[in-house]
């Protein structure tokens, strides 16, 4: 029999996890803004809005220290962060467009080099996904192979029910273990029906056709047409669940400091700047082209996956109204 949990017991689950020293990250509201943040108690979980930033930061934070250095009495010491101190984490209330992304990123973070920072966090995190029952006109998950009830990426999956509460489904061993551990908070399913799914009202896309078009149109007037307006900020990349570029910087002073890894974006003018001052992508349309190529061609060629989940954040937040779905529609028509 399927198991269900009430909203109140979901809050109790969070409280119980916190009591055991587990870090719980979920959508949390601060003023009008909802972001994924460590929850202090179950009541803080706010499932009303899609968080402004994606859930990737649970594995790939905006900034992290990868080593630190110190100079004392003429001696220099360099130390690595202790990854064993990364906390066991439950990431809760993750909609499918965010939950599928870590699975896509695993490929690149364990390709030619196993990134210990990303992979350790992945190992220590359980994802509790939730079926999506509210979409807006920027959402297009179904056009890129995701869906409002995609279970992929979730260890445990919640399906909101009419009248409140959720069906609880374990998707893998991690999810089953968590479900078994808190069996007492669950009930046997009654007659309540699931809330209707939020299926975005969008035209479908033929991703294979788009990939083929991209392969033959590195040079095309479309790039200028779309991206001459691009302002060159990193809002699209930083809010994206799948963008994963980073820069490495040394910060600090003579006495000591840190080497840090922080988010970077191919829209930035300096992203491809060489030490010689030559810049192979010296105008904005070339940078925007890279964004599309990377998501729908290069990553697909290399890892057989699309680097886009259709969450719509880049559309909602582009300062100049560039709409990736409109761009893909345009290519799809060619």
């Amino acid at each position, binding site marked *: 029999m399927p198991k269900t949990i009430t909203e109140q017991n979901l809050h109790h689950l969070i409280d119980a996890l916190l009591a055991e020293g587990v870090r719980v990250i979920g959508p949390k509201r601060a003023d009008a803004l909802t972001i994924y943040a460590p929850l202090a108690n179950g*009541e803080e979980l706010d499932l009303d809005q899609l968080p*402004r930033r994606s859930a990737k930061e649970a594995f790939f934070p*905006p900034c992290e220290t990868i080593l630190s250095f110190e100079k004392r009495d003429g001696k220099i010491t360099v130390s690595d962060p202790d990854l064993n101190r990364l906390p066991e984490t439950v990431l809760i209330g993750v909609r499918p467009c965010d939950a599928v992304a870590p699975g896509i990123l695993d490929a690149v973070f364990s390709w030619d080099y196993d990134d210990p920072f990303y992979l350790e966090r992945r190992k220590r995190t359980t994802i509790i996904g939730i079926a999506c*029952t509210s979409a*807006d006109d920027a959402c297009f998950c179904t056009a890129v192979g995701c869906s409002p009830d995609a279970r992929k990426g979730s260890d445990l999956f919640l399906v*909101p029910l009419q009248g409140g509460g959720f069906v609880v489904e374990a998707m893998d061993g991690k999810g089953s273990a968590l479900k078994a551990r808190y069996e007492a908070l669950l009930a046997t399913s009654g007659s309540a029906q699931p809330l209707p799914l939020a299926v975005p009202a969008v035209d479908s896309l033929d991703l294979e056709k788009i990939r083929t078009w991209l392969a033959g149109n590195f040079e095309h007037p479309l790039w200028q047409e779309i991206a001459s307006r691009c*302002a060159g*900020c990193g809002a699209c990349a930083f809010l994206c669940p799948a963008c994963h570029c980073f820069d490495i910087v040394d910060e600090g002073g003579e006495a000591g400091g840190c080497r840090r890894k922080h988010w970077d974006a191919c829209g930035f003018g300096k992203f491809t700047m060489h030490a010689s001052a030559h810049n192979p992508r010296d105008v904005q349309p070339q940078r925007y082209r890279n964004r599309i190529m990377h998501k729908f061609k290069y990553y697909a060629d290399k890892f057989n996956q699309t680097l886009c989940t259709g969450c719509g954040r880049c559309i*909602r937040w582009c300062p100049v109204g560039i709409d990736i779905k409109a761009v893909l529609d345009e290519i799809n028509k060619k």
Partner: protein
Amino acid sequence: MAALGRHRACPYKGTNYMTVNNQNIDTSPLVDPACYAAATAAIRAEAARLFETGEVTAVVGYRAGRRAGTVMPEVAVTAEAAAQLIFSPGCQNNLTLFLSKAKRDALPKGKVAIVVKGCDLRALAGLIGESQLKRDEVHVIGVACPGVYGAAADHSRPLTADSAAKKCRECKVHLPEGVDLVAGTLPELKELPPLEAQELARLEAMTPQERWAFWTEQFSRCIRCLACRQVCPFCFCTQCLCDRNRPQAVDTSPRPAGNTAWHLVRAMHLAGRCSGCAECERVCPMDIPLNLLNRKMAQELYELYGFEAGTQPQEQGALTSYRDDDDESFIK
């Protein structure tokens, strides 16, 4: 439809899953939407004339996006493209962004026309004052603008008292002056509470410690996407101090030290130059109220030097000129 981003008017108030509470939202249109249609028609007619006479090589304006009510900047280089230009409450962008020397390299050579609101016109005057362009290099189509959406507005609905941008609530330049053509006519406008002035007053009433706590909290959300810099018409430096790494002036990582330094450097570099278009605040994906800093700077400049960003180009900025009677009381 649900509130996923700022393009929805945040209808969710309660903590219940997916419950909607629309009771507090004023949905009556602020002005007759026909006034935007009239401005659109006037812009299109002028653009058609300009292409026909060959006066300009491009018209920088606005066109509709895929989603209802959304808009994007458009550089129209043909009469056909110019026939698609619009004016609507979604026309938030300050298009003078595209007129700095560096950005103009991407535009066709020759004279260009640009669509500006009264608030944008101040930026145009500032850019001319800073020798980024000459007045006769640009044909200015000013719009009689009743107001545009704020960052959190629902683009699919008419402009309302709730969805109007904060800057529009205190706007004194609905009708642009000194332009080559005024598109549209201004309807009668309602008086709206000056939310931003109220918020600035609230901050000024705080103790320095409280204010520091307020900004520390705000800056803690910054992810350094630099949208604020990239949309600013006055952030036209080809080498930003904050991108330098030999030596490094400002930490680039999104942490308290670098975030605070970045936002203070930004505010200081814009003091006496900022036109108050508030684009930096509109585009901030982390909702940091950046225009409060700009506005505070503008207030100081006015009190100290009588300087105000205006619609007429001023060759000497308050901070780039010296007068014997300049107030120096702040030097302690």
